[in-house]
């Protein structure tokens, strides 16, 4: 039984929501900049998150293009190795912490209250605070690039002792900014949990929630569980650097490998933090455009939960070559292989949803379908990486780079774009420009594959990751990757164009913007007024 409401608005009060601001006296919002600084409205904060993450996506993208430009051909042409290392590090940090995570938080802010029939997030003022921490954190982080000794240059995984004893002086600022970003994520997660658990429309049980809400609930638990561990690790780093402790310094009786254990205890769940909400978005889009209820709703929820639990048990598969004992290597190999099962269940469910549907190919659907195919390819390389003996060859090569970019770019990023295209009519009241969106899609798909598919080959052929210059046999693969990266990078300008055009105008969208879309957000008008569901709707279970 899919947890859907019937296509027709089934809410007694949906008419009340139509006219914004009536019924209850809303204080006039402050004007100009102050309005955005002080807003406690989940929709405005959601927009802030999304705009912030788009800007950061471009900044991180520029860093990636600097890297790809240097790697266009063998030899050092454009930048110095020190700067190259700063670029790879910053690219990773910005994309993970400032682009992908805030984008999902933005979507959560916008959509979770709408999908569960709540008037706002549970803690609106906290919501405002957790957003405004982000610009502070990342302006600090970006400013390290201009400090003496440069910014962080030890990779986004910042392994000790390269990131402690041998780090540039700006590392303390890096730690501070990561702390602030971490607090922001944690506050966001608390807010989301409080909202989902306490503010569902009367009659909506947990197993009636849309999958985007479910995946975000589980993601929030992951965030609460692992962000403090990250905070702990960087605090230990800070103490090692500034207060003479030696958590990670062998000279003082510490252990550099401990850093990696702690980091990946955070880092692997972090990977799922970046992909679970994507599963939720795709699980909303595919049924809509296949005009058929999602296959296996319950098993999707269970699979998400078991992926989340397993994610705590696999961290050392990032460390197969640090010299783990045999039993540990075996254990982590088995648990990692096990993750393929629930992940496979998800893919099978999506495909079975398509089977005997009635499928149309609007832009959100295009991105969602590309997500299924390309994420699965990333999953296959992940399965290969799980085989520990083979991982001794794959580890820290471009094969790994190919793997996680397949999971994160056509995975997480495509899902975010699919979500944006899917909900733009709800946000702006206009459909996105179909032609432009199709161009954006096809150029992105071609660009992504040109960029990352050859990396499988260069990795297998023996190219280590994070090197600014490479041997001649890798030249062809890198040339293709660099061309693809520029194609992908510049086609994202189309995305910006589509979004701006859509905000300004375009074909008008009704409340029910997509024919078969069933969740509660489609019962409020498009564009969604500033205040919705001020009287809770009564949720009615659909009768499929």
């Amino acid at each position, binding site marked *: 039984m899919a947890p859907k409401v019937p296509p027709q608005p089934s809410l007694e009060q949906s008419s009340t929501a139509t006219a914004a601001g009536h019924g209850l006296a809303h204080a006039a919002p402050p004007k100009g900049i102050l309005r955005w600084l002080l807003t406690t409205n989940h929709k405005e904060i959601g927009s802030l998150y999304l705009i912030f993450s788009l800007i950061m996506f471009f900044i991180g993208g520029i860093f990636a293009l600097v890297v790809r430009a240097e790697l266009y051909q063998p030899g050092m042409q454009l930048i110095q190795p020190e700067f190259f290392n700063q670029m790879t590090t910053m690219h990773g940090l910005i994309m993970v912490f400032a682009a992908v995570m805030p984008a999902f938080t933005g979507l959560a802010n916008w959509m979770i209250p709408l999908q569960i029939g709540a008037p706002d997030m549970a803690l609106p003022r906290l919501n405002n605070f957790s957003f405004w921490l982000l610009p502070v954190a990342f302006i600090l982080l970006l400013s390290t690039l201009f400090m003496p000794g440069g910014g962080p240059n030890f990779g986004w995984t910042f392994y000790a002792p390269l990131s402690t004893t041998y780090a540039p002086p700006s590392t303390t600022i890096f730690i501070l900014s990561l702390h602030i970003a971490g607090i922001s994520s944690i506050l966001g997660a608390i807010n989301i949990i409080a909202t989902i658990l306490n503010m569902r429309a009367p009659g909506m049980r947990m*197993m009636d929630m849309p999958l985007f809400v479910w995946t975000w609930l589980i993601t929030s638990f992951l965030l609460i569980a692992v962000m403090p561990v990250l905070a702990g690790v960087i605090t230990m780093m800070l103490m090692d650097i500034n207060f003479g402790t030696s958590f990670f310094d062998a000279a003082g009786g510490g252990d550099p490998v401990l850093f990696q254990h702690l980091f990946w205890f955070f880092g692997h769940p972090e990977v799922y933090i970046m992909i679970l909400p994507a599963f939720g978005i795709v699980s909303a889009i595919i049924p809509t455009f296949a005009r058929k209820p999602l296959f296996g709703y319950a098993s999707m929820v269970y699979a998400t*939960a*078991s992926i989340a639990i397993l994610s705590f048990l696999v961290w050392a598969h990032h460390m197969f070559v640090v010299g783990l004992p045999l*039993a540990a290597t075996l254990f982590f190999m088995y*648990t990692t292989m096990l993750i393929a099962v629930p992940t496979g269940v998800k893919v099978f469910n999506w495909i079975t949803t398509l089977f005997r549907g009635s499928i149309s190919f609007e832009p959100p659907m295009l991105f969602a379908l590309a997500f299924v195919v390309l994420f699965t390819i990333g999953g296959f390389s992940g399965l290969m990486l799980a085989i520990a003996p083979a991982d001794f060859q794959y580890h820290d090569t471009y094969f790994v780079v190919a793997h996680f970019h397949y999971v994160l770019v056509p995975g997480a990023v495509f899902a975010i774009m699919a979500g944006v295209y899917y909900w733009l009519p709800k946000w702006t009241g206009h459909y996105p420009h179909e032609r432009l969106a199709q161009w954006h899609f096809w150029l992105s798909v071609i660009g992504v594959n040109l960029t990352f598919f050859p990396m499988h080959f260069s990795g297998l052929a023996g190219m280590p990751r994070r090197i600014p210059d490479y041997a001649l046999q890798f030249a062809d693969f890198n040339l293709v990757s660099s061309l693809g990266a520029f194609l992908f990078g510049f086609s994202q300008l189309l995305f910006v164009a589509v979004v701006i055009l859509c905000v300004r105008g375009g074909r008008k969208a009704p409340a029910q913007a997509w024919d078969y879309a069933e969740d509660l957000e489609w019962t409020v008008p498009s564009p969604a007024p500033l205040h919705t569901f001020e009287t809770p709707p009564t949720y009615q279970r659909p009768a499929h």
Partner: protein
Amino acid sequence: MWTVIKSVLAAFFGVQKEQQRREDFEQGRPGAFIVTGLVMAAFLVGILAFVAILVSR
């Protein structure tokens, strides 16, 4: 108790009949399911660790 274990096992596999799920949820004791789930997760870890240690000898 046995139905709880069966349901949790089914959840581990990611499969459950809608009918059964409905019954479970109407039973209204989430605590039992959560505890059973955690115990069985720990059990799974135990089995894997045991196999790994056994094989590595």
